[in-house]
């Protein structure tokens, strides 16, 4: 679309702004655009007016319908704001995009009135404006998607931080209950946490409990072995506990070599061993 054509449509919108706006509002509220959650009347009107205005101004200045150029920045901002507030009100990305598309008809009506005698030019203008609005509608869908991805990334980060605590069971005995799948990234975090805690507390024994780890394959075993090697280099030792019967079978079938790492099926057993190694014992108090 040439910049001349854009300017023509821009002045058309300028001339019939109020009518186009109310036609557009009517289609948006007509029931064919928003299904369940309709944005509030006042909000919708404000958003549509701002969008229409910024669209008109951009089209007066822009050289083409490439909406990534700086002339379209205000339009992009308005689209992004509309997409986000609609998403908050519960509208789906399809509904938001359809609302943008529904601006086509009011403008087409006005174009037909102006250029009715020149069918060739009319069809060109209709096609170009349609292409432009398609881009704008798709842009709102993209913004929606990006903000979802941000939420997911943030939640992933939080989950990772939540699930690798190192607790001190007793003086000199640390416990690391692992929950969930163990991938390379998490292992890195887990390893650093554990080793730092060993350095901070000077605890010579750490019990790594894998009751909450659903599957143990060669990769997971490798990660565990790396962690234990690093701890031993520092001068501490590790016991693996929480080995379920299924896991034990899997490890043997896979031929994973755990070397001389001590393993126990329950945290209680591992704790008993740790106490013995540090020269402690739990005794019954008969006078209680």
């Amino acid at each position: 679309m040439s910049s001349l054509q854009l300017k023509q449509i821009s002045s058309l919108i300028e001339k019939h702004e109020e009518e186009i706006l109310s036609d557009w509002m009517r289609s948006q509220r007509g029931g064919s655009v928003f299904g369940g959650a309709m944005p509030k009347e006042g909000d919708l009107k404000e958003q549509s007016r701002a969008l229409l205005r910024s669209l008109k101004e951009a089209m007066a200045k822009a050289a083409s319908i490439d909406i990534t150029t700086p002339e379209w920045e205000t339009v992009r901002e308005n689209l992004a704001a509309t997409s986000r507030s609609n998403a908050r009100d519960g509208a789906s990305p399809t509904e938001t995009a359809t609302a943008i598309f529904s601006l086509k008809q009011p403008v087409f009506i006005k174009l037909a009135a102006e250029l009715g005698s020149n069918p060739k030019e009319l069809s060109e203008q209709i096609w170009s404006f349609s292409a432009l609005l398609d881009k704008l509608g798709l842009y709102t869908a993209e913004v929606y998607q990006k903000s979802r991805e941000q939420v997911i990334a943030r939640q992933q980060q939080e989950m990772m931080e939540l699930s690798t605590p190192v607790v001190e069971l007793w003086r000199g005995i640390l416990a690391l209950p692992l929950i969930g799948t163990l991938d390379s990234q998490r292992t890195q975090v887990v390893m650093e946490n554990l080793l730092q805690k060993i350095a901070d507390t000077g605890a010579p024994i750490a019990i790594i409990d894998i009751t909450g780890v659903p599957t143990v394959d060669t990769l997971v075993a490798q990660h565990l072995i790396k962690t234990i090697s690093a701890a031993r280099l520092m001068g501490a030792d590790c016991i693996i506990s929480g080995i379920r019967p299924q896991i034990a079978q899997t490890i043997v079938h896979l031929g994973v070599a755990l070397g001389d790492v001590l393993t126990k099926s329950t945290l209680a057993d591992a704790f008993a061993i740790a106490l013995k190694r540090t020269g402690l014992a739990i005794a019954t108090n008969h006078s209680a």
Partner: protein
Amino acid sequence: MEKIPIMKIDTSLLVTIQVDMNDSLALELQDDLSDRIVKTKATGVLIEISALEIIDSFIGRMLGNITAISRLLGADTVVVGMRPAVAITLVELGLPLAGIRTALNVERGLAMINPSSGGEGVDGRGPL
């Protein structure tokens, strides 16, 4: 020129490495240490590396050499105070530190060398 300090604690020697090692320093340390072990009839050597933030294969080799030399002279060697980041790097790089015993700090290191002097010694196992 810097010299790496060697201190005597009971029947053990404590070596604290606080500066970057290079060839000449490493050789000098080996000389000094072997002399002192024989002179003081030391039965244990503690190498304290908590000030080292980076360890490369050179230092790894040097630690291995010192351990072997001390053992030949009749002294037990323990490396103490390794930083977590250093431990992780060594494991990731797969640098062989087989046969080197380690402890969390000087206290535990001493307990490992002199088990009869009491203290909470944990059976020091080598890296996997």
